[in-house]
């Protein structure tokens, strides 16, 4: 197991270097002069040149990359002139909001998709199977940011049972001062029930909007995996031995269709990191996605680059974790 982990981590290193190179090149390709941005519009050409030299922008590209990497390994993602803070700090402050939303969206998607997929496979070709396939195709077709708006329209504008899309809590509400930055967890730990209810009410629509597109692929995968398990010999044996109903499906069928679902979940959570930019915009959710959006709006390159790099690294780490979990669920994976 340890060798397997080590092998996977070592294989990740060249990819990580490649990722930083891409992020670096993209940041250097951005229009506008970073030195000018720092100096401000009133600065003279001489001042700008001084700043350019102090930022190392007059050095050759490979040297700049070296400096960039030196900063990066120390967690330095640059400085945002827009917020007046280092990008790494900006992102760290906003990360819990995004992670909390993604976790809820994943839980939502899985708790709908796994049972639906198994059920559709068991009742193959029947109404529920057709229904789940229709939902799957629809889920792919509907843009998640639009679905988010439709949810707001129905539940806030028309029915008025959802809170307004103003972020993680009502306007003016005090955020819980918990250890994690996850409002729902923190308020629960501190026993702040009003805040807990408020945070929960605010996360429901973003959760559904972000989780909805994920339901389709997970359902489909679970269904197909379950189908192939159902046709296997050991299930036939289980049936012959008198197993039926829930024990058979939960213990034997679901467990054996899990590996595929785990991979898919990893893929999906990676996708959600990107999707969060759009969903957070709709719900004014103060996470990394909204930070990226605001950086984009104000052409704050450091902010954009920070998010681009961070999301790639997160993506890679998620895949690493998925592979490791996979190798626990299915030890044969390690042999490859």
């Amino acid at each position, binding site marked *: 197991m340890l060798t397997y982990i080590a092998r996977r981590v070592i294989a990740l290193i*060249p990819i990580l270097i490649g990722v930083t190179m891409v992020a670096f090149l993209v940041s250097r390709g951005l*229009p506008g002069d970073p030195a000018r941005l720092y100096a401000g519009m009133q600065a003279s050409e001489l001042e700008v040149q001084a700043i350019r030299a102090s930022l190392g922008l007059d050095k050759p590209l490979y040297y700049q990359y070296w400096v960039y990497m030196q900063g990066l390994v120390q967690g330095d993602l640059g400085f945002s002139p827009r917020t007046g803070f280092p990008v790494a700090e900006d992102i760290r402050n906003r990360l819990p909001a995004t992670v909390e939303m993604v976790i809820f969206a994943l839980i939502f998607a899985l708790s709908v998709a796994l049972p639906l997929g198994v059920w559709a496979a068991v009742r193959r070709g029947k109404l529920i199977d057709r229904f789940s396939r229709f939902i799957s195709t629809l889920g792919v*077709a*509907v843009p998640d940011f639009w679905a988010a*708006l439709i949810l707001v329209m129905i539940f806030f504008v028309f029915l008025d049972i959802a809170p*307004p899309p103003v972020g993680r809590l009502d306007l003016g509400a005090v955020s819980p001062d918990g250890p994690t930055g996850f409002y729902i967890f923190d308020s629960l730990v501190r026993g702040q029930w009003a805040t807990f209810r408020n945070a929960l009410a605010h996360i429901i629509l973003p959760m559904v909007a972000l989780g909805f597109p994920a339901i389709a692929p997970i359902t489909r995968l679970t269904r197909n995996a379950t189908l192939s398990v159902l046709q296997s010999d050991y299930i036939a044996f289980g049936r012959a031995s008198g197993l039926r109903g829930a024990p058979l499906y939960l213990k034997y069928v679901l467990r054996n269709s899990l590996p595929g679902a785990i991979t898919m979940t990893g893929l999906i959570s990676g996708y959600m990191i990107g999707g969060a*930019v759009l969903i957070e915009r709709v719900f004014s959710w103060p996470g990394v996605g909204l930070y990226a959006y605001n950086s984009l709006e104000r052409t704050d390159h450091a902010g954009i680059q920070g998010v681009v790099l961070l999301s*790639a690294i997160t993506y890679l780490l998620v895949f690493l974790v998925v592979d490791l979990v996979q190798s626990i669920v299915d030890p044969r994976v390690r042999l490859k």
Partner: protein
Amino acid sequence: MTAKTGKRRLDSRLVVGLIMFGIMVAVAILAPWIARNDPLAIDFGTQFLAPSADHWFGTGRLGFDIFARVVYAARYDLVIAMSAVAFSIVIGHPIGLFVGYMGGRIDSLTMRGLDVIQSFPAFVLAVGVLAALGEGVLNLILVVGFVGIPTFVRLVRAEVRSLREHSYVEAGRAVGNSKWQILLRYIAPGTVGTVVTQAAISCGWAILLTAALGFIGLGVPLPEPEWGAMIADGVDEMVVGGRWWISVFPGMAIAFTIFSLSLIGESIADLVEPTRRKSR
């Protein structure tokens, strides 16, 4: 096989999908005849009108006729998506053929390169590159196409690697065909099916990506109509003013188009790969 036996009836999903997509293409081509109003006409006298007989989908903040804009936007979204997919294929297909056939160092090097590109969530990478290149329809096509290249390279490469081992390829080699003749005459045609299937799916995906980029303001520059940007236009209006129509209709157009493309993609996949059907 369908033509030979004539017994298998046409897949209804394919028919429905083609009709739906055909309607959308027709809307794009016939836009000036379908929409009576000018999609770019700014008229403050007709601000924020709810849908009515004069303005089927209502009007927006600048008095734009939403119906006309949804119709004309089909031109932008379809052309951008289809050009982007064409770009992905033109670059990705030959690379996939080549590295899949050659194998060895060039193959593994290419794969590592793809790993790097695919380490970025597609949308985030598109945002980063597009922010670097600057707005504009051509850049949009290039970026959406670029992000789609790895899919085609991987797909074609996998196909080539399996075809390479077939006995008919062996036979082709035995009768004295050169390396390149084998690749182009014997192997390449076998990869067309998967590429066509993927093209339909990728096209829907490209429309989504284009709309998402438009939604955050990185799309077709205003005042030209584009579905994603139109949805963004209505966000605040819906939340504050309850004016739902500004965002709802462009989103329906996106869903309609992508739904048709995924119907087409799925049914072609079953046709090309008959074993898939058995699991249905």
